[in-house]
């Protein structure tokens, strides 16, 4: 009995000690991590003379990454950025798959980093937080730092402003080069088909890709279109809706009034078109249960002929296809110019960065200075082309990229923090073969002539905060069911009819239009 007691007592002591010790340990870990960074940046003689007289500022950044693994803490690119901007970066890389969840949770926890990516500056969560003064209004300060206005378009600043306050620093992106249909050119050639330019031609292409053995292996193992759907929207199937409506996004302008896309006849046409395609086996049978990456794997595995992709993200598709067939050429991934004369145009930015109010004013200015300096070519190029001798070499004045090394180090993830928009950046990556770079750039030039932007970016409705997520989900569930054939298309007509009389919908439309008029 006594022995047992002794043991229990010891356990208790250990437990308590462990609890207390943990925090200390992590704290010292952080410190030692910083220390080592500190010394390493001191050891590498700083090039920037002006930064030497001041202590480097420690900046905690939270952002997302798309590469398989995030860049390591001690990577050389980051060290060079730290030297140039006189900072100590402490970057918390979060997978892009669940960044929005993480963002909401971090906001709720109150323990905010110094600079954080805001994936959707119009989300109710961010708006509410900003309204309550959680973030710095950088508007009055940015004029002191010339690169902000120089490198980020006015339209992006205007769209992300909230009641005249600039709580978010938009992340500039090229407005051209949005995700759109990409077709296997080699399959078109095998079957003697032309590049489709209308939805009817696309249908024929998808049919042939599904049933006429486009890869010539004698097996019926291919499918026309591969895509995924999200809980609240059509996912990559949204491109069909866009094409049929000629409208980009949730709201379209009709006689000067914004109208929700559910009321557009094109939405119904798109659903009917997809339902027919599904019935005839032109779309992957289990698309409704596929995750984004699973859908992509099917395209990457050479089992599907049409997919919705950003051209700039095709490297990874090519890398996979060339492993299956070593003769596969990059230019066989053909981005379509437009369908029925439509292709989407981006708003010129993607998300934003925000500085929480928990950061003192002095430090906030230093972060802006860092951001400003980072946008200059010599710093920004560090994560575009990498470091000379490590990620690229210069031969006859031309930069020769070491694709593998750049991908392995994941240096491009730093683009998620600071980026200087090059108009072709979403279409072409420096790792692509030269002829493909040219071909894609030409396609982008053609696309630019017909691209349609989303006019409802940044519009706000109070009732929409709770109503829109439900509406989107209900509409999407029904669309999915109709495409799968478990509901008839008339169910959509009933849904739309009901929606017309829904007082919440009327209120939403009114508020969105007011928001549009006041812009």
């Amino acid at each position, binding site marked *: 009995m006594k022995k047992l007691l002794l043991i229990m007592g010891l356990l208790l002591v250990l437990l308590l000690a462990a609890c207390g010790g943990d925090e200390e340990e992590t704290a010292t870990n952080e410190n030692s991590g910083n220390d080592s960074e500190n010394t390493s940046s001191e050891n590498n003689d700083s090039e920037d003379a002006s930064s030497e007289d001041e202590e480097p500022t420690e900046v905690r950044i939270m952002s997302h990454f798309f590469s398989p693994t995030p860049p390591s803490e001690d990577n050389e690119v980051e060290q060079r950025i730290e030297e140039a901007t006189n900072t100590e970066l402490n970057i918390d890389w979060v997978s892009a798959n669940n960044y929005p969840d993480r963002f909401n949770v971090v906001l*709720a926890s109150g323990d905010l980093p110094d600079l954080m990516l805001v994936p959707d500056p119009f989300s109710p969560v961010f708006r509410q937080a900003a309204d309550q003064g959680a973030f710095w209004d950088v508007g009055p300060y940015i004029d002191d730092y010339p690169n902000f206005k120089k490198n980020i378009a006015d339209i992006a600043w205007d769209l992300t402003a909230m009641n005249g306050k600039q709580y978010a620093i938009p992340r500039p992106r090229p407005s051209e080069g949005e995700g759109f249909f990409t077709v296997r050119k080699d399959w078109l050639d095998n079957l003697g088909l032309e590049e489709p330019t209308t939805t009817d031609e696309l249908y024929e292409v998808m049919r042939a890709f599904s049933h006429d053995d486009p890869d010539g292996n004698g097996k019926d193992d291919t499918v026309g279109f591969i895509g995924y759907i999200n809980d609240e929207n059509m996912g990559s199937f949204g491109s069909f809706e866009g094409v049929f409506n000629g409208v980009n996004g949730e709201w379209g302008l009709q006689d000067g009034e914004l109208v929700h896309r559910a009321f557009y006849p094109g939405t119904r046409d798109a659903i009917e078109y997809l339902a027919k395609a599904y019935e005839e086996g032109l779309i992957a*049978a289990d698309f409704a249960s596929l995750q984004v990456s699973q859908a992509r794997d099917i395209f990457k595995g050479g089992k599907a002929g049409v997919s919705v992709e950003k051209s700039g993200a095709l490297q990874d598709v090519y890398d996979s296809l060339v492993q299956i067939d070593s003769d596969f050429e990059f230019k066989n991934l053909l981005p379509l110019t437009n369908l029925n004369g439509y292709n989407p145009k981006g708003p010129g930015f993607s998300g934003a960065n925000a500085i929480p109010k928990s950061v003192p004013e002095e430090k906030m200015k230093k972060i802006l200075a860092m951001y400003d300096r980072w946008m200059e070519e010599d710093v920004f190029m560090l994560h575009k082309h990498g470091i000379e001798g490590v990620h690229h070499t210069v031969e006859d004045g031309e930069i020769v990229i070491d694709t593998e090394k750049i991908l392995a180090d994941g240096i491009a993830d730093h683009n998620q923090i600071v980026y200087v928009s090059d108009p072709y950046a979403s279409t072409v990556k420096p790792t692509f073969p030269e002829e493909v770079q040219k071909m894609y750039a030409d396609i982008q030039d053609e696309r630019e002539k017909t691209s349609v932007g989303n006019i409802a970016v940044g519009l706000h409705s109070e009732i929409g905060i709770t109503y829109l997520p439900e509406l989107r989900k209900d509409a999407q569930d029904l669309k999915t069911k109709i495409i799968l054939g478990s509901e008839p298309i008339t169910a959509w007509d009933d849904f739309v009819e009901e929606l017309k009389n829904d007082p919440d919908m009327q209120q939403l439309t009114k508020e969105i239009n007011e928001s549009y008029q006041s812009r």
Partner: protein
Amino acid sequence: MIDNEISTQKPTDVSAYTKMEKSPGKLKKFFKHVKRDRYLYLLALPGIIYFFIFKYVPMYGITIAFKDFSPFIGFTDSQWVGLQHFQRLFTGEDFWMLLRNTLAISFLNILFFFPLPIILSILLNELRSQVYKRTVQSLVYLPHFLSWVIIASLTFMLLGKSDGIINYFLNELGFGTFDFLTNPDVFWFLLTGQSVWKEVGWGTIIFLAAIAGVNTELYEAAKMDGANRFRQIWHVTLPAIRNVIIILLILRLGDVMEVGFEQVFLMYNGAVSEVAEVFDTYVYRVGIQQGQFSYSTAVGLFKSFVGLVLVVIANRMSKRFGEEGIY
């Protein structure tokens, strides 16, 4: 020995508590008890501290279910809104759907999944070869250690419409393909099937332990009376493990509102949403994804409250039927 000590000790403690409130004179007696059993209380202390710090203190956060919580205003300064969030839940369209789905999945589990470990453990118990029994036992435990992510992937690989193995065979045999994953009619059964596959072996542990504790003389006596193997199971084994079965059933009933977030979330897709959305996934969607913290807390609180009520009811019923409850 220690077991006995504790179980005989407990009732006196409880009575001390209840009597204490009646007359202050008994307070002394209570402290006397505490003093007498101080080592037992000391033993319990780490557990009590654990529960207090990690289970009771965080409950303070429940208050946001009655507030219009905003992280930047903070816990204390957020405005009280009374039962507004509960009102929204109960009058919302989703409420009945959530309740129906949660209960349906749970009751299917109780109906199909609960009896299976009992049957399996009796079957295992009847095996003659100990080697064979041990091998089977170990093999059926294994799926318990797989994460739901793996099981969901296996399900997709087996049941997928375009490249699932089962559909491949169905198709080859001329039955055509069957839609398992995006079919609202079979979704609940799919979940039950997964739960059975994963947990049935693990569930046998407790029953096998209970069966092992049955006095072998009872079997011998039954044999003398001419009972065959089935009669022995019916008259000896089952009555002997009846209280274990009932206690586990009570615990399960308390979990009726918990259907396992991971499993449902992983199998969820737009085509089955109206049968797949349960309280747990709803809380995630509304709370974490849409950031409506107060409302989702209210939903979670309601769920827990129903669970508590169910445990109390089930416990009362078990006592009424002359069995031991869980408290």
